[in-house]
């Protein structure tokens, strides 16, 4: 139950995953939320990177070494996907805000396109990174 000790009326909650049938638009929505939380961590990692750079060569080498470790690379791979998926999702939402793209088939298609774009852009980015000897 929502705590109403302050006299606040109960506010609606989001439906949880278990009461939804899996579907592309719903999957995009929950994926977007997951990506947002992942990017929140990514923004903290970015701020930490700047702090390590400012702290000097040794601190920077340690921090980059941490990011270059297997777990670090896995995190960065996830962040790459999250960044590109959110770029696509934001563009999709902007059309929604203009009242366009709500037809079920259009929404399905743009959702699939957002995921496809994120997958392709992530692969391209990491292929380029591999090409310049980043890992």
């Amino acid at each position: 139950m929502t705590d109403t000790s302050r006299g606040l009326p109960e506010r609606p909650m989001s439906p949880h995953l278990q009461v939804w049938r899996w579907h592309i638009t719903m999957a995009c929505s929950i994926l977007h939320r997951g990506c947002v939380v992942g990017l929140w961590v990514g923004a903290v990692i970015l701020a930490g990177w700047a702090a390590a750079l400012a702290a000097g060569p040794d601190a920077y080498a340690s921090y980059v070494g941490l990011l270059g470790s297997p777990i670090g690379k896995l995190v960065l791979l996830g962040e790459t996907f999250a960044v590109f998926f959110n770029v696509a999702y934001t563009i999709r939402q902007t059309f929604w805000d203009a009242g366009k793209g709500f037809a079920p088939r259009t929404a399905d298609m743009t959702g699939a396109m957002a995921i496809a774009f994120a997958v392709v852009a992530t692969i391209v980015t990491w292929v380029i990174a591999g090409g310049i000897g980043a890992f």
Partner: protein
Amino acid sequence: MSKKDLFQPQQFRTPLSRARGMGASRHGVSHFITERVSGLALAPLTVWGAYAALKQVRAPHDVVVQWMAQPVNAVLLSLLLIAALVHLQSAVQVVIEDYIERFTTKTALVIGNLFVCVLAGAVGVFSILKVALTVTGAH
């Protein structure tokens, strides 16, 4: 009173509340607008960020410092970090409000989210400026 009248929200609102346009939340649609506008700013900034990350990923400390000393890089990276944190603070707050029921837990997480975002922004921008403004031999 006809059934149609019952569904007219105006009858429950005073003219003053309509003029203020703040709704039940008392902050109107500012949260929504903040998320959308920061999201639009981030679309080009994050693509630049991915490009910049690829350029610097193999670079040693002194090369990255020289890169950061370029005003365009220091400014764009600061903008990327600030826009991202503004956007993510709003976005994560919505996730917290949607899934956390208990008032005290929810409030603690919303405030903690704000504090972490502001701290990351302060540390990040200070560090960028420190590197950009104290580098010697920058061109």
